């Protein structure tokens, strides 16, 4: 792969990218992995970025890095699924959430597909716009916007479905 500039320039460019992305990348990883795996994932992504520095888009570096992480995780899950003894353990999408978050919303989120959950997490937790989510997922901006819109709609529907039963359950608990 062609390398632009000298070693010092390249290192300086990576330094800037590293400084800008280290913490948000670590946050991305820890939202989706155990802490130990998250650190490994962040390191792996940054290593890819160093090796492919010329491919990192200047105007969307962080979404590009999230995209690399997304692919590594997808690849890993694909690989893991082949290991039959581990299926049940790792088929579970890592979906940590704040323990004091809205339980209805948390329940609703958990009922969505993995793709919907990821779209919503990228928008809410990584605070990405649809055009940036498109970079992460490797799709068009329009496709990302559509995915996100549909995910939001399904989340709304899930909340609407859950809330009455939750209210009834709470009432029974209180009565009991």
């Amino acid at each position, binding site marked *: 792969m062609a390398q632009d500039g000298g070693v010092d320039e390249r290192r300086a460019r990576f330094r800037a990218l590293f400084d800008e992305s280290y913490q948000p990348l670590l946050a991305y990883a820890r939202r989706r992995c155990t802490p130990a795996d998250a650190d490994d994932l962040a390191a792996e992504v940054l290593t890819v970025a160093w090796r492919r520095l010329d491919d990192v888009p200047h105007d969307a570096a962080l979404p590009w890095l999230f995209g690399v992480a997304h692919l590594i995780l997808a690849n890993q899950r*694909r690989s893991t699924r082949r*290991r039959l003894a581990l299926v049940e353990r790792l088929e579970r999408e890592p979906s940590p959430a704040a323990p004091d978050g809205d339980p209805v919303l948390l329940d609703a989120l958990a009922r969505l597909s993995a793709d919907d959950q990821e779209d919503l997490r990228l928008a809410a937790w990584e605070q990405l716009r649809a055009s940036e989510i498109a970079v992460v997922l490797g799709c068009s901006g329009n496709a990302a916007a559509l995915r996100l819109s549909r995910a939001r709609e399904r989340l709304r529907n899930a909340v609407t479905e859950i809330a009455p039963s939750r209210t009834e359950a709470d009432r029974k608990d209180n009565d009991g």
Partner: protein
Amino acid sequence: MAEPPEDEIAALRGLDPIDPASLPSADEPEAHALFERITMSDTMTEPAAAKPRRRGLWIGAAAAVAVLAIGGGVYFATDDDDGDQPVAADDTTPETTDDTVGLDPSLGMCIAYDLETLASNQFAFDGTVTAVEGDDITFDVNEWYKGGDADSATYGGASGFGGLTSESASFTLEPGMRLLVTGNDGFVWSCGYTQPYDEAVAAEWAGVFA
């Protein structure tokens, strides 16, 4: 009936389990150490430069070989090889205490599977293994995505499979196995690129090479 939140995205932020500000910053010593480890590694990852891995090079001599990561391919060079070859298997290789959980320990030796790299490969197809002879694999091609139009094709790279270096390629090639196959320079890539056929992945590949 409870009303759904007016702004789902804003509401979901309340579920965020991570406060980024609480995480180590790039100024922390561990981040500095990571930066140094990464930048001390070589940057050459050109997939087209991949060389075939030859089983005879590493059996019984694992300690004497340097593992070179070249794109999705993996090849090994002895200490006698040119000293300027990159060594990409560095400390950033993910480690897991439980080899059944966590990131692929081989990731440091393989470029991560991504569609951009896949798209740059010279050939890709949906094929069924008909024979494995030495390092050669012969396929009946069910559908070409890129790089050919024959009903069958033979490529090198069989030694890249078998789980010795990559969990992503831990399956053993057997006649009758249907795979999504890709590679360069006459060699099939392992490392998670060539993989057992999956309908969804096949559709994704079809899109990549459309």
